[in-house]
């Protein structure tokens, strides 16, 4: 039995390694730390797989470990990623073609992490709402509300930037 669950987990890790790297990266924003987190998360998962009762949810369980490890890391290092007004305006001044991506990325990073993580999991990692809820230990309605609010925030922010451009 143990060998079988080990195999399920190993497969899950190998299949999703790029995804979990990106997920970790979305929290810590640099390669070295993201790799550290991947390593830690694998270790944690492999040594505590017995605690996972339902093997069918191994993916969301593992994602949760990655997120918790990332959050722990951030808490320990207290990295605050903030964007000064000046820089924002600088980016906003650029022409659409060359700076669009940067503007958008900044917007995602500027989202409070509660919102960012639901967007990342639902739209970029393509998890179902139920799985997102499972990963975050929240109920489905909370996730839906946060998603809705996240989308609203994104749109509001983008509107603001475009307003500045027309001035």
């Amino acid at each position, binding site marked *: *039995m*143990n060998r079988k669950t*080990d195999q399920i987990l*190993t497969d899950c*890790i*190998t299949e999703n*390694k*790029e995804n979990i*790297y*990106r997920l970790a*990266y*979305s929290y810590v924003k640099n*390669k070295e730390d993201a*790799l550290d987190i*991947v*390593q830690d998360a*694998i*270790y944690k*998962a*492999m*040594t*505590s797989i*017995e*605690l996972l009762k339902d093997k069918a949810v191994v993916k969301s369980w593992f994602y949760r470990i990655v997120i918790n490890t990332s*959050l722990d890391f951030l*808490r320990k290092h*207290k990295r*605050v990623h903030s964007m000064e007004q000046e820089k924002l305006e600088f980016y906003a001044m650029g022409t659409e073609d060359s700076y*669009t*991506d940067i503007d*958008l*990325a900044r*917007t*995602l990073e500027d989202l409070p992490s*509660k919102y960012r993580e639901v*967007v*990342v999991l639902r*739209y*970029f990692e393509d998890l179902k709402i139920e799985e997102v809820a499972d990963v975050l230990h929240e109920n489905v309605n*909370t996730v839906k*509300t*946060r998603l809705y*609010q996240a*989308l609203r925030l*994104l*749109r509001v922010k*983008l509107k603001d930037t475009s307003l500045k451009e027309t001035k």
Partner: protein
Amino acid sequence: MNDILEHLRKEYQSVPIPEELDLLVNRSIKEALRTRKVKRLKVKGMTAAAAILVFLIAINASTTVANAFSSIPGVERIIKVLTLQEFKVKESNYDADIKVPAITNMENKELQLGLNQKYLDESKALYDQFQAEIEELKKQGLNDAHVGVDAGYEVKTDNDTIFSIGRYIVQTAASSSTVMQFDTIDKKNQRLITLPMLFQDEQYVKQISDNIIAQMKEQMKGDDNKIYWIAGATDYISIEESFSSIKKDQSFYINKDGKLVIVFNKYEVAPGSMGIVEFVIPTEAIEGDLVSHNYIK
């Protein structure tokens, strides 16, 4: 809207995957498996040696101890807290260490007995529950699951008027949770102090709650890592779930400076990462409703 998401998604996925990821992932898996194997071997050794259950009785005859204290000339009758019993389980993956406090040397023997009985009963219940959990895990064949419980006590305040004892229970499975309970004793009058007793009427509930909410807001302003579930602080928690008022018999103790300290257990008013949170209530905030300054300075 979809355009925006699509852009963001592309941006997210454009994060380059480092070359060493493959290697790192494979190595991590192997390493984890190896440590696990070592652990499993140990587990087998332990099962062969059978479960070791240490049942430790440190000072069971509390009355004898109490008498011994009072018979020493020059030693005043001071309320003392001792470890009455210790329930211990030490199996490879299951750890329990439950210390049962016992209060001695109180003049009010009835109260002393009542408190000690409560401590013992609750500890025993905790121990039984832990045993049941282990049985359940074994039945499911989850021999590698790590579970533990650690319970004990700490004396928060011990001065001329007040004796405050806090008891904690830390339960570990995948993550840990801690629960804390307090008893505060009036030494002079030999009675247990309850929160409502300190105040003339129920105004204190609002006064304390308002002060705590103000403190929460202040803390959140100064530190992004602090989160409390209060209205307006986090959008994703509904009004019903957010903290608006303490309970009439909210957990509390009186600290060494004679200040009232309100305690919330994990998840009670904040996310789990905040753990147990305590708020020292400035005496000015509750001045009007205090019965006297006997306890609260």
